[in-house]
């Protein structure tokens, strides 16, 4: 919008540069994009004026398309601006003409789009920590940043969870629920009220905290609260489930998105070195230190790759590595077992201490949790050391490491939850059960219970501690008997304390807090103080602290990400029992984000080993999903298995927690709904539904499998095609080499020929050559290989032929015929030799032109590309081979250019001639033709000689390996086909000018058609075409005489060429095209030659080049 007023000014300012830009544009268009340059746009405008709304609409659509994807085009900005403005103008100009509704629709869509963009931009501004992450990226690369991005993503999830629980559970309870102290479950028992505000109590989440909205126990059991009748218990249950559901959905969605993104790169193909070279640099790095270490890392990785490459050749000592790996795994298992044993030992000890001592010190109280946290900190490092033994690829090592750490963390969490559930088990047992349990338990029980009874006098805090300790203990062993004792003590002490849900929630929250403390401590200790020491002590130490032992800390992405996963697991586990846990986690994550980013920027160094856990990497997410599932299990189990506490919580008094749903349905919904539900939940419906689900899963899986299969097949196909391409290229290379061969022999021949040949002939031989070469490479593959010369040389040599031809024409323009007869024989002798050479040359051309063709396909850009080559070649020729004077030069030039333009086009004709002759000579298929042709040949030896010379070779080839050649020819020719066709048509046009226009047109069409058609048509056509050709032929001569006619013919031909051009494109896909083509044209060329010779072979030489040039221009 702001652009509108300014655009005229800009345009005016840019008008001076317009010419330049236009040029650029065209160039660029040809280079990459299908055409839509200015001129075309303009044309589109004009068209649009006159045509119906549908076309206008289409034009507008087209312009809009340009607008929408303009930023994806690799143009310079100036051009983009231009194109965009132009497209907009057109759209503006013509949109009004359309029907009103369409305009409104478009306007509405536009508005909506703008609004969306604005909204998106608005949101983008508020992405938290974007700049911070960018800064970290610039220092440490994308790997470290991915940790923070992951953290931010988790933060987002937790915000949503917090909102869910906060809005639907916590807030209603606070606003409408019974106030604190109003019921038994919401008041602190009298015994504890004295100590309820002690730091000790608060620390262990007892006292006031325990009786707050933090935990399950506080929520009232009234079915409806407030004036509006908010069903809190139902909401509590549903939100609890929704937390899991949301987490699952968001995770799976993210994973699906990522996998879609990384699908393209999912292939087995390996470009080790390429990737290490082209994808190594992290373009986000902007910090010199980081750049240095990155460079070092790249050097390492490249050296590694080289080493690997070299070691591939050696036979690896498998036994050693395998045994080492086994040892490493044993070590890991040992350390896992060791950590478990240590935990067990500590728990046991703390229990003993508790029993014997009345007052525990702070250390003794927190012993267990500290030890557990220490183990979780140290064990990963130990695993890392062990992993060095295994000698895996770094990436594999990392995965192993992550898996092991994950197992460790999971072990911790699971032992905790199992212990807790055990406790819940015993807590929910009735008094009578307690007695039974006690009797069942071991003999030590009695003493334990006694000691417990002593403990009963202790304040509540103490008991809580015990409980925690117990849980720790259970983690490792599950000493149920002591638990039972514990529960006995609880039971006897106070029914109010029996709220197991609150207890579980407390434990989870406590764990989360301790985890946070340890994270902070470890960041400070391991990163910050270490960094300080290293920096300031290294001067006065006996070794270099910075580079040797302690070094600076590295940011361990994998471990840290795992820690995040672990942390999130705790949240999921406890969220049902402590609705405020997500809120706490949000705070924790915010703190972590700031602390980590600060620590990373101040005391870490970018690390050497690069693990690119990019955004599209599903590995972290998979771990998170795994964690989510495993954390959901215990909660679901508890909900499904245990009876809710009697005296606290929203579900007190129910048999099972989930009864709330059925109860609500029963009481508050109409009866019909109830019956429907009962039907639906009856096995009659559930079982088939389940079956259906299974079937669906199976079906989808099989579809996925088949898709994978087809995917693989397609890939295979591509691969084979590529290899075929490669083969083709190799063949071309061989052809080039052959070319050199030919060059050696050529000079002699040429000298002989020069005087006699006309320019026309010269052009024809070449063309023949080009045509031939397609065939020859294949047929003479064996022979070709033996010859070894460089390709560049080959080109000049081939060029030499042309200039040679040209020179005579210029000098002795009209008198080719006289000497022809005498010269002919030598030529024929040489023919075999020459032919290959010509062929090779063309092959080389092919090779060169080929790369361009795909790009320039539709346009005649080939000419542009090919021209320079040809000129070069020509110049060389002039200088070295012939040594002719200025005249030669001149003659050569036009010729060369013409050659180019025409060459590819004409090549076919000439090739046709040559092939046709060959056929006549050797093939039995067309005996009649042979007879006819022969006489002509003799007469017009001038023209003919070249053909003959060329022909023998191809014919032999054909006999030997017809099919192979054909295929080869077709393929190789493909790219060119377009260009070939067009010139051909023009050529004929000139002929037509004399009066056979129609015929020529027909011919051209026939040719094209035949091209598209199969072989069968060819067989039929040759004679047909033949005759026509005869008629047409005289005209070429005429052209030179009258240039006006030529021009006419050109214009006519243009239209034809347009028609034909479309065909060639199609045909280019067709592999058999060329063979057919050659046959069809064959007769023509022959006819032409014959007629030319008969009338006057003279005139052709000079005028032709000029004509051709003109036509091309």
């Amino acid at each position, binding site marked *: 919008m702001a652009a509108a007023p300014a655009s005229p000014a800009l345009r005016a300012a840019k008008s001076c540069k317009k010419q330049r830009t236009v040029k*650029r544009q065209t160039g660029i268009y040809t280079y990459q994009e299908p055409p839509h340059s200015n001129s075309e746009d303009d044309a589109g405008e004009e068209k649009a004026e006159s045509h119906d709304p549908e076309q206008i609409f289409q034009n507008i659509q087209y312009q809009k398309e340009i607008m929408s994807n303009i930023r994806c085009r690799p143009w310079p900005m100036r051009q983009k601006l231009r194109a965009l403005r132009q497209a907009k103008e057109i759209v503006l100009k013509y949109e009004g003409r359309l029907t009103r509704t369409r305009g409104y629709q478009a306007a509405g869509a536009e508005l909506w789009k703008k609004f969306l963009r604005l909204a998106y931009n608005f949101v983008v501004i508020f992405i938290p920590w974007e700049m911070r992450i960018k800064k970290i990226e610039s220092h440490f690369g994308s790997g470290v940043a991915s940790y923070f991005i992951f953290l931010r993503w988790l933060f987002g999830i937790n915000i949503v969870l917090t909102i869910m629980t906060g809005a639907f559970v916590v807030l209603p309870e606070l606003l409408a629920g019974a106030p604190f102290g109003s019921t038994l479950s919401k008041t602190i028992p009298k015994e504890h009220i004295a100590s309820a505000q002690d730091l000790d109590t608060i620390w262990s989440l007892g006292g006031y905290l325990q009786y707050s909205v933090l935990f399950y126990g506080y929520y009232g059991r009234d079915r409806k609260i407030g004036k509006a009748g908010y069903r809190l218990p139902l909401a509590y249950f549903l939100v609890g489930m929704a937390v899991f559901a949301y987490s699952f959905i968001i995770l799976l969605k993210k994973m699906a998105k990522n996998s879609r993104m990384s699908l393209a790169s999912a292939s087995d193909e390996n470009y080790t070195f*390429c990737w290490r070279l082209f994808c190594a640099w992290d373009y986000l790095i902007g910090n010199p230190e980081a750049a240095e270490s990155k460079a070092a890392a790249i*050097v390492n990785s490249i050296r590694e790759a080289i080493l690997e490459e070299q070691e591939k050749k050696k036979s690896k000592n498998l036994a050693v590595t395998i045994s080492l790996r086994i040892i490493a795994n044993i070590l890991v298992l040992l350390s896992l077992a060791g950590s478990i044993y240590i935990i067990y030992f500590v728990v046991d000890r703390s229990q003993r201490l508790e029993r014997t001592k009345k007052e525990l010190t702070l250390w003794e109280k927190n012993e267990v949790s500290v030890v557990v946290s220490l183990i979780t900190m140290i064990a990963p490092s130990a695993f890392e050391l062990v992993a060095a033994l295994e000698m895996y690829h770094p990436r594999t090592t990392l995965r192993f490491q992550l898996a092991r750490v994950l197992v460790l963390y999971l072990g911790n969490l699971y032992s905790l939850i199992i212990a807790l559930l055990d406790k819940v088990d015993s807590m929910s047992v009735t008094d009578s059960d307690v007695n039974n349990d006690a009797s069942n338990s071991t003999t030590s029980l009695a003493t334990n219970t006694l000691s417990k009874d002593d403990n009963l006098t202790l304040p509540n805090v103490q008991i809580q501690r015990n409980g925690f300790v117990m849980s720790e203990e259970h983690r490792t062993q599950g000493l149920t008997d002591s638990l039972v004792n514990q529960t006995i003590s609880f039971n006897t002490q106070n029914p109010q304390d029996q709220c197991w849900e609150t207890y579980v929630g407390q434990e989870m929250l406590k764990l989360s807090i301790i985890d946070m403390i340890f994270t902070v401590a470890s960041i400070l200790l391991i990163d910050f103080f270490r960094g300080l020491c290293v920096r300031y002590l290294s001067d006065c130490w006996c070794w270099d602290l910075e580079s040797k032992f302690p070094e600076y800390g590295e940011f361990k992405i994998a471990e840290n990400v795992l820690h995040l996963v672990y942390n999130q697991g705790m949240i999921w586990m406890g969220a049902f029992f402590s609705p405020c846990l997500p809120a706490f986690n949000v705070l924790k994550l915010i703190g972590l984000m700031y602390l980590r980013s600060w620590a990373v920027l101040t005391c870490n160094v970018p690390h050497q080993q690069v693990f690119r856990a990019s955004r599209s990497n599903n590995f972290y997410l998979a771990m998170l999903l795994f964690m989510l599932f495993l954390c959901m299990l215990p909660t679901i189990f508890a909900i499904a298995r245990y009876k809710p506490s009697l005296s606290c919580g929203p579900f007190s008094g129910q048999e099972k927690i989930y009864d709330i749903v059925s109860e609500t349905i029963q009481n508050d919904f109409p009866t019909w709904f109830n019956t429907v539900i009962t039907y639906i939940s009856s096995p009659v419906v559930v079982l088939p539904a389940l079956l259906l689900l299974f079937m669906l899963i199976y079906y989808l899986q099989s579809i996925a499998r088949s898709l994978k299969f087809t995917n693989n097949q397609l890939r295979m196909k591509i691969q084979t095609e590529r290899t075929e391409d490669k083969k083709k290229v190799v063949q071309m290379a061989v052809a080039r080499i052959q070319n050199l061969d030919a060059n050696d022999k050529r000079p002699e021949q040429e000298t002989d020929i020069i005087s006699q040949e006309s320019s026309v002939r010269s052009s024809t031989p070449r063309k023949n050559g080009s045509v031939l070469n397609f065939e020859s490479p294949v047929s003479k593959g064996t022979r070709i290989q033996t010859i070894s010369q460089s390709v560049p040389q080959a080109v000049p040599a081939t060029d030499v032929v042309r200039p040679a031809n040209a020179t005579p024409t210029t000098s002795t323009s009209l008198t080719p015929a006289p000497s022809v007869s005498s010269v002919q024989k030598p030529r024929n002798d040489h023919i075999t030799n020459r032919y290959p050479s010509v062929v090779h040359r063309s092959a080389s051309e092919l090779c060169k032109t080929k790369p361009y063709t795909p790009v320039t396909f539709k346009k005649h850009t080939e000419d542009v590309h090919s021209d320079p080559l040809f000129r070069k070649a020509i110049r060389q020729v002039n200088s070295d081979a012939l040594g002719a004077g200025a005249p030669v030069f001149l003659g050569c030039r036009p010729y060369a250019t013409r050659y180019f333009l025409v060459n590819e086009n004409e090549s076919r004709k000439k090739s046709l001639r040559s092939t046709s002759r060959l056929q006549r000579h050797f093939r039995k298929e067309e005996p009649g033709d042979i007879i006819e042709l022969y006489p002509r040949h003799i007469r017009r030896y001038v023209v003919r000689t070249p053909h003959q010379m060329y022909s023998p070779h191809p014919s032999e080839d054909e006999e030997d390996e017809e099919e192979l050649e054909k295929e080869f020819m077709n393929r190789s020719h493909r790219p060119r086909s377009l260009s070939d066709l067009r010139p051909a048509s023009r050529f004929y046009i000139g002929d037509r000018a004399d009066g056979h226009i129609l015929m020529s047109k027909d011919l051209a069409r026939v040719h094209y058609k035949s091209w598209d058609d199969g072989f069968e048509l060819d067989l039929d056509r040759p004679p047909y075409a033949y005759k026509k050709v005869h008629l047409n032929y005289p005209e070429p001569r005429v052209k030179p005489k009258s240039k006006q006619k030529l021009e006419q013919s050109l214009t006519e031909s243009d239209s034809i060429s347009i028609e034909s051009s479309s065909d060639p494109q199609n045909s280019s896909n067709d592999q058999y095209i060329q063979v057919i083509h050659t046959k069809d044209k064959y007769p023509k060329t022959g006819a032409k030659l014959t007629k030319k010779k008969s009338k006057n072979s003279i005139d052709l030489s000079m005028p032709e080049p000029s004509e051709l040039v003109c036509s091309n221009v």
Partner: protein
Amino acid sequence: RLKNPLLFEQEQLFLPVWQICRFWLHGRYHEMAPNVVPMDYTKDPDVKLPMQLIINMPELKENPFKERIVESFSEDGEGSLSFNDFVDMFSVLSEMAPRELKAIYAFKIYDFNTDNFICKADLEKTLNKLTREELTAEEITLVCEKVIEEADMDGDGKLGFADFENMISKAPDFLRI
């Protein structure tokens, strides 16, 4: 202040809005040569900054290919950037630009001699820049051979764009250039 001269709209660019907001980028451009670059762009002055200034930007400073990056975005191929080119560069290098576009420019960047092929000489230069010339000559030749062997589909001994794109599109790491 600027009179809305920098009329870039998001349709053209892959930049977040705070970078497009016309002052930010122009500010960056302006601060490199305060006395050359005018603040008023309404008259579309033809101002170009030389490569030397641009490669000293913190974003590019440490990049081993900074010269090539700037060159491939400059309209004249010499490395001097007009403001339009400058914006273009930021847009393509931003993380929102699609892979295909990046591949095109990456190819340009690695094509040191601008012959539309990545040949051995280009590869050697790339390697030397990337590793700060720490590899020995044998290592370099080995790596170059390997690279061409891996990625060269048409067997012409150098990498065309098709080869390059094919290779790069399969790279798991080619996310950010």
